[in-house]
């Protein structure tokens, strides 16, 4: 089949959506399909939105048998066989309208724009033969705001076979960009309250030095240099595989993220238990407290207790790691499932 994968992008800015598109391309090509990747530029400024949306309406991909659209507003593209793997809305005009994230005035002009956007989005969504999302959270928003039914299709990680378990040391690892909303600082605070020799490893790059510097200071102030390993850099894929292979458990506790995040499923493939918090969002679709990990309250005390528990109840931790791996099948997180559903 000739398949076009369409998404919007900002040049030179890496985004989570690029992985989902590019990995899907690789998997489709492996199956013998011809794939064209269509990335179109998009700027979210409210006054430029509709002009760009009209542009997307004129994209001609009739040469493709079907198109799969990801990031907004690529879902505006027309095609007789349009499939959406909907990652998120322009959230500032949807669920983030009544939050400080909306930098625009709540005036008639912007409300009108918001309502017009909802209408146009809904009409474009309706054109799709099938709408998939990357999480329950996003599906619920589609129902609530656009009245659209959708099917959750969890995004897998590429070459998952790489991940394996080699044993369990005493480290809880958090392999993820160092950003405030990922809340590595919360774990450092928790470490100060732990009573066991459990250790913490934080690996990831950051947009600026501000947050990593703050973390460094935090570690030093609490005298945790011996027990907290802070690596402010992009670690290689192989290093990641190794770190996950040896760790005790993996943490992933962003603030209210839609999707479960690749780190969670990488850890699950590596058969390691997960540590997260009750307000982390989509990752709670993956992690069930006591089953394949621990869901703590988003407080240092609760996290400290969880980390100690993972350390002391080692057997349980190992067993939860096995459960984490099994859970991937339970939720159909696999490329074969993805391809089956997208090409149905």
């Amino acid at each position, binding site marked *: 089949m000739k398949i076009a994968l369409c998404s919007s992008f900002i040049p030179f800015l890496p985004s989570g959506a690029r992985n989902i598109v590019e990995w899907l391309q690789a998997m489709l090509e492996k199956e013998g399909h011809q794939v064209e990747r269509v990335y179109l530029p998009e700027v979210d400024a409210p006054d430029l939105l509709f002009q760009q*949306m009209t542009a997307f309406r004129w994209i001609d991909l009739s040469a493709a048998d079907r198109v799969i659209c990801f990031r907004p507003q690529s879902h505006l593209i027309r095609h007789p066989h349009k499939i959406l793997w909907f990652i998120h809305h322009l959230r500032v005009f949807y669920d983030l309208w009544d939050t400080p994230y909306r930098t625009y005035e709540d005036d008639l002009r912007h409300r009108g724009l918001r309502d017009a956007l909802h209408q146009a989005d809904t009409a474009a969504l309706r054109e799709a033969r099938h709408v998939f999302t990357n999480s329950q959270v996003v599906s619920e928003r589609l129902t609530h705001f656009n009245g659209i039914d959708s099917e959750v299709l969890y995004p897998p990680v590429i070459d998952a076979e790489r991940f394996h378990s080699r044993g369990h040391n005493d480290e809880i690892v958090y392999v993820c960009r160092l950003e405030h909303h990922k809340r590595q600082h919360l774990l450092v605070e928790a470490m100060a309250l732990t009573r066991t020799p459990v250790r913490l490893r934080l690996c990831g790059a950051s947009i600026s030095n501000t947050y990593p510097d703050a973390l460094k200071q935090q570690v030093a102030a609490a005298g945790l240099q011996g027990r907290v390993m802070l690596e402010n850099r992009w670690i290689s894929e192989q290093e990641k595989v190794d770190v996950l292979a040896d760790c005790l458990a993996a943490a992933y506790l962003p603030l209210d993220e839609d999707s479960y995040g690749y780190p969670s499923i990488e850890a699950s493939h590596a058969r390691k238990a997960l540590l997260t918090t009750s307000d982390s969002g989509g990752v709670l679709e993956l992690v069930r407290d006591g089953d394949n990990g621990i869901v703590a309250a988003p407080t240092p005390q609760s996290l400290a207790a969880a980390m100690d528990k993972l350390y002391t109840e080692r057997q349980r931790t190992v067993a939860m790691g096995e459960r984490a791996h099994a859970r991937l099948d339970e939720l159909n997180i696999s490329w074969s499932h993805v391809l089956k559903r997208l090409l149905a």
Partner: protein
Amino acid sequence: MFTPGLQASAIGRMSTLVVHALRAAGHEVTVVRCELESLMKKQSHDFGGTVLSWGNQAAVKAAVAGADSVVYQVGNNYDFHIGCLEWLPRAPGIVCLHDFFLGHLFWAWAERNRPAAHAILRSWYGDTVSERYFAHPDSDSFLASTVDAAPMTEWIGAMASGVITHSNWGAERLWRSCAGPVHVVPLPYNAPAGRGAAAHSNGPTFHVLTIGHVNPNKRVASVIRAIGNSSVLRDHTVYRLVGRIQTDTVVALSSLARRYQVNLLISDELDDDALVSTIDQADVVTCLRWPSLEAASASAIESMLYGKPVIVTDTHFYSELPDDCVLKIDPEDEISSLQGALEKLYESPELRSTLGARAKEWAGATFRADHYAQCLTRMAADVSRVRPALTAIERLTSTLAGWGASSDWLSGDESRTALAIFGSSALDN
């Protein structure tokens, strides 16, 4: 809100009602007077709140920038509405259109904008109309030629982001020209200090009243003839004219009245109190128009609110009034139809009473400022929803125009399908 402010403007009076209703509903309103600067020295309606003048560039610009919605009260009188024409192109907004025929407004504007005027005429009405438009020998032939063929309704419609007008008869041209919503809402008006007395039945005199600037389309001559043709009317009627009137009209009408032995009283303009008492005294008010140019008649509404029996021409806005509220006469058989109506009213005080009461009740429930204000705010919300797509399409058509191409390239089936998700109204224009 851009509106004439001078007292002589009935539109100005309507605006004060709407402004106060908007404020009562919790909105902030800034008024911008849109009449000729020289007319602003005259007494103004009382709008309350901030009142600016359309020539105050900085203040008006700031007011427009800070507003959620801009509204323009537009009528056919150039001197009263010049400020609207200056600001509408650069500060898009909702137009409250009081007259479907805007030929005089357009003509006066065209004096300093000939090439643009011709382009507008050509695009809406074709080359022939455009060539002849400024070549009419007098105002009567101009009116006669253009009232149906080139009323200029589309010119204003196309500039508006939405239109509220006050009756249906001329709205078709607005549907076609305005890219935004077009709604018909009853014109708000009031009867200030109206005692709303029923027909005044003391004495044998039959008081017939016509209010407003005395020009031929108010059919005063026909009323005189109708009264003159009936002995009973001739003997008992005093026909009063109140409103601006030119000397030669006074002479002509007086001479006509003498010929027909009709008792004609001409009063020129009266102040508010005098006007109210004159209306009070009237048994019947005639509100005739031929041709009828305005969307709705403030004077007819006013008379109904005063509980007066009103005689109207069965056309346009007046046709839409309920039959049990006014008496309608046939414009094709004007004088004898008028005579019949006047005689009927003269002979039956009960009819006058019933008609007047019913008119008052119905008018009071219909021509409401609070309802109008609500419609205005709802339209503002509709416009804000429609604007993003419209602006986008405007940008595209202007790019196309820059490339020397017409927007026809955007109106093919393929483009319509593509743009349909943005709402059908966006496409149609």
